[in-house]
């Protein structure tokens, strides 16, 4: 075993040497902040302590913030996957102007800066001047203007909808790329076998898409947990902490209250959480690979 490893090493020594600069830079760029963050989180007033973690977990709003983070993440991820999936299927069809629609639909939300998206949605949600209330009112769906960002549940929904718009493009792009890899002959073959649209999807498209779904879900979950500019510009975590997540909490603690140690404790906690989620996904992924 060891000999084999050593053999590999010597055979690939040149390749490894080529890799060294990248590994070193990656280590510096990734490991250094993580370690520094853990170190800061374990200090208070120049002493080593667990005080910061205790403070974070004892925080009266901790349960609420955790709940919000789950709602925000699950809501955004599920909606982004669904919208992205449907859009990818649609954009995979042959129709006139496909390239145009692809670029508009897939690139526009993704390329718009976070803060611009936040401010734009904030205006659309505005209760008095907002376009959303106006449309819903004219359609007769609501009979009074909804205070979108001022009500706890509506605000949670509002940030998730905005985030879905911002993020679905990425999922859609992944799925579209995956769909393009499905060999056309398979569809033709199944057609010969008399499969209908749903059977084709289930037996041809889905097995190929499945690993992409798992990977995309993992990536969007991680990004959503860590994503904060949208919430920050739209609600600032309010009303009454309804849209406060782990990262808005960490940001506020560091850059408003200048309590970097406590903020680092929250960030480290979030890091571990995200890390565990990634591990779970990776395991699920490798098990699926093995099954095949």
């Amino acid at each position, binding site marked *: 075993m060891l000999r084999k490893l050593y053999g590999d090493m010597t055979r690939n020594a040149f390749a490894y040497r080529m890799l060294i600069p990248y590994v070193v830079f990656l280590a510096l760029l990734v490991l250094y902040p993580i370690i520094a963050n853990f170190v800061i989180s374990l200090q208070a007033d120049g002493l080593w302590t667990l005080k910061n973690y205790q403070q974070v977990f004892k925080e009266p709003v901790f349960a609420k913030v955790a709940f919000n983070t789950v709602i925000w993440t699950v809501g955004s991820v599920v909606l982004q996957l669904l919208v992205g999936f449907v859009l990818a299927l649609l954009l995979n069809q042959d129709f006139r102007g496909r390239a145009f629609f692809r670029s508009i639909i897939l690139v526009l939300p993704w390329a718009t800066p976070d803060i611009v998206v936040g401010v734009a949605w904030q205006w659309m949600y505005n209760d008095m001047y907002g376009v959303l209330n106006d449309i819903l009112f004219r359609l007769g769906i609501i009979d009074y203007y909804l205070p979108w960002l*001022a009500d*706890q549940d509506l*605000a949670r929904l509002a940030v998730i909808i905005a985030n879905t718009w911002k993020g679905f493009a990425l999922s859609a792009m992944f799925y579209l790329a995956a769909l393009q890899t499905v060999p056309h002959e398979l569809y033709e073959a199944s057609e010969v076998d008399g499969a209908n649209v749903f059977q084709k999807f289930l037996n041809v498209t889905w097995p190929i898409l499945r690993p992409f779904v798992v990977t995309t879900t993992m990536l969007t979950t991680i990004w959503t947990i860590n994503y904060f500019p949208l919430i920050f510009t739209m609600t600032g975590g309010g009303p009454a902490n309804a849209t406060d997540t782990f990262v808005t909490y960490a940001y506020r603690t560091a*850059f408003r*209250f200048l309590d970097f140690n406590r903020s680092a404790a929250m960030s480290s906690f979030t890091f571990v959480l995200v890390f565990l989620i990634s591990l779970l996904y990776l395991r699920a992924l490798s098990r699926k690979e093995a099954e095949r």
Partner: protein
Amino acid sequence: MRKYAVLVALLLAVLVSGTAFAQDKLIVWVGGHVVEQEQTWAEIISAFEEATGIEVEYRLIGFDVYYDTLVTAFSAGQGPDMTFADLGGWVPTFAAQGWIESLEDRLQASDITEQIWPNLWPTVTYNGERYGLPWYTDCRVLMYNKIMFEEAGLDPEKPPVTWDELLEYAKALTDPRQMKYGYGVSGKRSEVATLGYMIFLHGAGGELLTEDYSKAAFNTPAGLSALKFYTELFTEHKVSPPATPSYGEDDFRSMMAQNRVAMAISGPWAFPLIEMANPAIVGNYAVAIHPYSAEPASVLGGWASVVSSTSKMKEEAWKFIEYITSYDVWRMWIARHGGPMPTRMDVCYDAPEFDDPRWEVILEAFPYAKVRPPIPEWPEVSDRIQNMIQVVVTGQATAEEAIAIAEQEINAILGN
């Protein structure tokens, strides 16, 4: 081997470049509402360069990103030599972090000091020493829309004086079907919610913290009556727009410009802004001392000049501060822009531009203006006040419950 040497040299060059070019210019960062006056800043700075021979490199930074920019720069040890800090607690906060220099000795020796409004000094004091020289200031008053007053059959020359009148007027001015509202309650999670509560609290004769800032002092009958009155304007009387928990002063100012909100807390910085939002509002808005139940009240704000503790050009930075705070520079500024309010009493009294009914109200209200507690914990204390208001206006808790929780949390923050 040579390849490695080249690599190492390259790395060193990258690392060193940040510090290699020895600083020979005074770095100045300007923030706050005054950054809009770009041309004036350019002229002030070149006049200063000419008079002193000190070269200045300056940046004007918008308010939204200013605090974060400063905090990031200072915590990285890369702060500007001289900059402005908000009088709402930034000076003690920065001083506690060791980011800024005590100016006590320089202030003692300067004759500018005696011209500064005396109620400003607590905002720049930390541990008994002064860390900043206030540059411009303001105080919060009631701004109201005269057109809406007339439409509602109210006398636009007689703004409300007491809380009862405020409520009565606000009810008369509110018409939800036309989306017109009498009074804007700042319910947003932002400093403005704290400021709104403070004006009602002080107007009821209450105090936020004890005199030595060691404990919460607002859970009293006065403090509770202020919280109840302030929030009930929205929850009970509905004289503030439905999305109040997401609105603040700036939103209400825009709505007032469109004749949607009749009264709201505002200040002198808002004069040019409301006129910019709707030129037709010129002459159709006015200000008055904010209504109160026990005594007139206001909260002051503004900006102070501070010097970075890591600066290598402290002497030059102080010269710049003295220059911009001089009588002549201020008179020039006021003659040109009409505001904001200088921290120098002599300029306030001498400038003909302040012979204006709006400015008379500001100068009349100023002596009543209280400071926000100048303590490093202020941002977090203010956050709890904002939260207290938000849980009440969103119906999560009663005023009694919310005030008790806020008191307990603030005492914990202050170390009790």
